[in-house]
């Protein structure tokens, strides 16, 4: 009983934290500042020259340049998909910058004093500890300074380039490679060649193909056989420059019997113009390995009139290649004007498992079309989907999910739970499940509910002393509980706070 009580205590603490954070932030988009840093831009637009330029800036070998160019040739013939339940003005792909990088990256700074103070201020606002700031800013010898506090290795991607990765030495000791993808292409070409594009091929879809041609940076993780990664790995993505698309590429490989937990956080400044984000994440999980991938996506959602915001078109896919491989996606999607995202699991190995936990919040004029694909190929494979969609204001929130049981996926199981919560009368929630079962020993379950935050619940909370926003946050956090519990502790706290902030002004 004591152990259980302790748990309750912890969770209590989290909730209190939420409320404090929410009140201290007074409900505005916290990451909406813009850092005035001198940037190096490639000319606007995309063509083979730009693709070559990006490849050149990253000092890539020829095979990589060719890979990009073939993707670009393919992309030129493709058309943008329209099947998602999202509406946005046509995107002019030639009116975007495809490459931007802080000028201070050109010469390696000797100490923190030499670093563009604005860049440091940016990291500070993002809550990155000082020692990690030094490493991220590329200060020589920063790696040798002992670190304090929590151990989360961070890779930060600022507009187009990865600006540094922390804790590299310590990870190296364990045999884990965690670096920017551009570094991996240079330093570990055999791994990149073997795995890049094998989960999300360059031909996969319009946005993934564009990404394959112009991705500028991203993170790379390799965990060798039998290694349990000694710390959580984390990437911060930030779009700072105006009119800049961010196309990052993440590649994670968990070799046989290994384990890694990976966190991804995203922010962007407030801009009147929309910004494009088209990322690709590929995860390869070999026999008996396990990967947890958690995202808190907090891109700028646009203002309360629907002006500005990030268009977020992301392809994320995990391939459970070996038997008994396991993957767990957890996402908290609170930002972006338009979200188009379906983190998927290919359950190829026998007895492999895929899980997807999602909270998608859409307020004001936000549109979210998100869900997952569980493709069961191997025997005795299991998948579980828990999706919580919250709509407020004039937002539209769609869950779109595919569960597919192939003929050889005997005795496989899926459980899907899909809940929608509506706040106010002008928003919408939609559920679009696709289910294909092509053998007769598998089982698929789907449950869906739609409910409203009701006035009686809010009055009950307020009679007990909470103000209206606290009350909404409490009710919504209760609704999301199963998903919040799937997040790593630190992320769970951030996510709870975000849930409350995103819904600011949704009642009353």
């Amino acid at each position, binding site marked *: *009983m004591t152990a*259980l*009580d302790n748990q*309750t*205590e912890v*969770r*209590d*603490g989290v*909730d*209190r934290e939420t*409320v404090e954070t929410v009140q201290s932030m007074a409900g505005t988009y916290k990451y909406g500042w813009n850092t005035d840093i001198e940037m190096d831009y490639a000319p606007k637009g995309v063509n083979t020259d730009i693709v070559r330029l990006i490849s050149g800036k990253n000092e890539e070998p020829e095979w990589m340049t060719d890979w990009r160019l073939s993707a670009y040739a393919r992309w030129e013939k493709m058309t943008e998909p329209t099947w998602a339940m999202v509406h946005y003005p046509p995107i002019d792909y030639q009116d975007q910058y495809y490459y931007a990088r802080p000028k201070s990256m050109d010469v390696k700074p000797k100490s923190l004093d030499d670093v563009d103070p604005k860049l440091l201020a940016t990291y500070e606002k993002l809550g990155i500890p000082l020692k990690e700031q030094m490493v991220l800013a590329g200060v020589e010898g920063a790696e040798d300074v002992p670190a304090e506090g929590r151990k989360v290795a961070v890779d930060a991607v600022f507009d187009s380039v990865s600006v540094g990765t922390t804790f590299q030495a310590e990870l190296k000791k364990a045999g884990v490679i965690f670096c920017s993808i551009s570094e991996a292409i240079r330093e570990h070409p055999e791994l990149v060649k073997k795995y890049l594009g094998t989960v999300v091929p360059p031909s996969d879809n319009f946005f993934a193909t564009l990404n394959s041609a112009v991705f500028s940076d991203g993170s790379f993780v390799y965990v060798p056989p039998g290694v349990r990664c000694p710390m959580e790995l984390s990437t911060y993505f930030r779009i700072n420059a105006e009119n800049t698309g961010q196309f990052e590429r993440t590649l994670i490989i968990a070799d046989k019997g290994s384990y890694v937990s990976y966190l991804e956080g995203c922010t962007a400044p407030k801009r009147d113009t929309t910004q494009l984000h088209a990322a690709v994440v590929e995860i390869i999980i070999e026999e008996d390995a396990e990967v947890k991938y958690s995202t808190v996506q907090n891109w700028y959602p646009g203002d309360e009139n629907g002006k500005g915001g990030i268009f977020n078109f992301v392809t994320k896919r995990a391939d459970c290649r070996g038997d008994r491989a396991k993957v767990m996606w957890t996402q908290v999607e609170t930002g972006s004007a338009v979200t188009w995202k379906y983190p998927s699991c290919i359950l190829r190995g026998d007895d492999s498992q895929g899980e997807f936990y999602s909270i998608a919040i859409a307020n004001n004029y936000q549109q979210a079309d998100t869900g997952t694909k569980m493709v069961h190929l191997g025997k005795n494979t299991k998948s579980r989907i828990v999706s919580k969609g919250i709509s407020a204001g004039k937002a539209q929130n769609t869950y779109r999910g595919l569960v597919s049981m192939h003929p050889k996926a005997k005795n496989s199981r899926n459980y899907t739970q899909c809940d929608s919560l509506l706040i106010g009368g002008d928003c919408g929630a939609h559920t679009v499940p696709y289910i294909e079962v092509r053998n007769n020993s598998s089982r698929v379950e789907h449950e869906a509910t739609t409910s409203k935050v009701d*006035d*009686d*619940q809010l*009055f*009950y*909370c*307020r*009679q*007990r*002393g*909470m*103000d*209206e926003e*606290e009350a909404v946050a*409490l*009710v919504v*956090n*209760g*609704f*999301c*509980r*199963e998903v919040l519990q799937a997040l790593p502790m630190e992320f769970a706290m951030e996510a709870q706070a975000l849930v409350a902030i995103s819904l600011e002004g949704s009642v009353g």
Partner: protein
Amino acid sequence: MLEIKNLHVKLEEEDKQILKGVNLTVGAGQVHAIMGPNGSGKSTLSYVLSGRGGYEVTEGAATLNGTDLLDLEPEERAAAGLFLAFQYPVEIPGVGNMTFLRTAVNAQRKARGEDELSATDFLKVIRAKAKDLQIDAEMLKRPVNVGFSGGEKKRNEILQMAMLEPKMCILDETDSGLDVDAMKLVADGVNALRDAGRSFLVITHYQRLLDHIKPDVVHIMADGKIIKTGGPELALEVENNGYADLLEERV
């Protein structure tokens, strides 16, 4: 403590007058009971005092220790010391009972400019108070009122009252749906909270609750007004003769 003067209330959405001039004064440390037939306006009075939406005060006033209640938001009334034990406690899925209460306690403390209660202190206090009401640790962890029996819900209301330590407690038909044992438990919980600085307004249909919670004053309410006020013997009169006689008397 609580002073209600000539309170007139109608429904916001339709032109229906529900309270038609209620006058009531509850002194510090007193227990007042309001009895009356269905539809007499008893529950409306409790909702209007606590600030639930959907009602419009057309005339009159209500003050708590001199503070105008009708001007305040529901949470401000709560922080000022007003507590309503709901007739139908509301379910909040996914929110642990303990989390809910701690958020509430600290919200009130904060509103009053007091320090928040630490997790350990809170746990100590709630465990002791839960024990008195025979609420086990399991029930404290379950989501607020979800899957609770009728008796558990009402005991939970009293636990909230004990934790929030209000000055003015309104109990809206807290006895409804309770068997004799559960009612005794609830009444014991209420009696334990009685003191010179805390007043109660007990709304009930039946006299039996008043056997356990002895009132100082009993009011009979009908058609939006208090039609008779007396001592505990008035409740017994209703028990024996029903409301019919009293209503006729009035005509």
